[in-house]
């Protein structure tokens, strides 16, 4: 076996170990909150990919394509509702997961790095939720995007550049821009997926915590 294969085997064994510490198979151990967050993410990826076939980003195209999805495309409304609810549930499960980690002191050494990754995942999940909201392209989203751009511009020095990089120039009556679309569909999910895989690997690597 080459060293590369050995490293891969090591990686997957850590993700899915053959044996676990006694008690770690209890539902009351973690409430499956991390796993459910990941499952929500998978639902978001699948429904998001299907929504991308019909959605058009931009000031003029976003809202009509959203209405098209909600009322014309077969099962479009169900896909969109699933995408929406999986997103809301993911924010809640990630937050509850963090509360569980604090309650069981699971952030203690040697798990500090995994804690940092977890908090980063929470922040990225909230940003994903916000960018997804802006892509509706409704008046409310235009107002939210305008407020967010103005808030970011308050950051001394880098603020205006950061606002342009993250949002582009959203219209006041429609928050949807191509830049937000790319962040929401490519950059942020890619970052979240990679961090999640590393997070799970480190959970096994650093060892399990005590049951509740």
């Amino acid at each position, binding site marked *: 076996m080459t060293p590369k294969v050995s490293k891969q085997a090591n990686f997957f064994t850590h993700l899915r170990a053959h044996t676990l510490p006694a008690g770690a198979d209890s*539902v009351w151990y973690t409430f499956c909150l991390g796993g459910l967050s990941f499952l929500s993410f998978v639902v978001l990826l699948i429904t998001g990919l299907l929504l991308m076939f019909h959605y058009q980003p931009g000031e003029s195209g976003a809202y009509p394509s959203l209405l098209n999805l909600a009322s014309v495309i077969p099962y479009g409304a169900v896909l969109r509702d699933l*995408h929406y609810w999986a997103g809301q*549930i993911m924010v809640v499960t990630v937050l509850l997961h963090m509360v569980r980690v604090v309650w069981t002191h699971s952030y203690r050494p040697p798990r500090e790095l995994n804690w940092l990754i977890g908090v980063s995942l929470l922040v990225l999940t909230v940003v994903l939720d916000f960018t997804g909201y802006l892509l509706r392209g409704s008046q409310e989203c235009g107002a939210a995007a305008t407020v967010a751009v103005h808030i970011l511009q*308050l950051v001394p020095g880098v603020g205006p550049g950061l606002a342009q990089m993250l949002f582009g120039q959203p219209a006041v009556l429609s928050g949807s821009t191509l830049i937000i679309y790319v962040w929401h569909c490519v950059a942020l999910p890619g970052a979240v997926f990679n961090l999640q895989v590393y997070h799970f690997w480190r959970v096994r690597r650093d060892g399990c915590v005590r049951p509740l």
Partner: protein
Amino acid sequence: MDRVPGRQLWQKEGIASVLFLAATIILALMLPAAVGTSPQAPAATHTIAPWIFGPIQVLLLYLPPWLGAVLLPLAAIIFLLGYPWISKAIGSAAARGLFFSLLVVSALLLLWFMVKEYWWR
């Protein structure tokens, strides 16, 4: 420490996944996501943030933007990032108290937002 086969955990995770997916589908079928107001409609004078950002909307109503929307959320994120080290420095009981205080304040702000924007209107 005694060890048990991982298969038992995978089976429980599988059951939890099926129940979770069923609950999400039921939720999606019963409560459709809003589409909001068309950009072609007359401009609205007041808009409501998504519930997740409700606490920030409340803070923005009463505090200057640099404080309510930049400094306080940034301080909360820095506190969360540094939590393991803060816990080591001040003790886990005190750190946990601070963490749950932050959670309670956020929940109260969210409740304030819900009452003000949804139930009171």
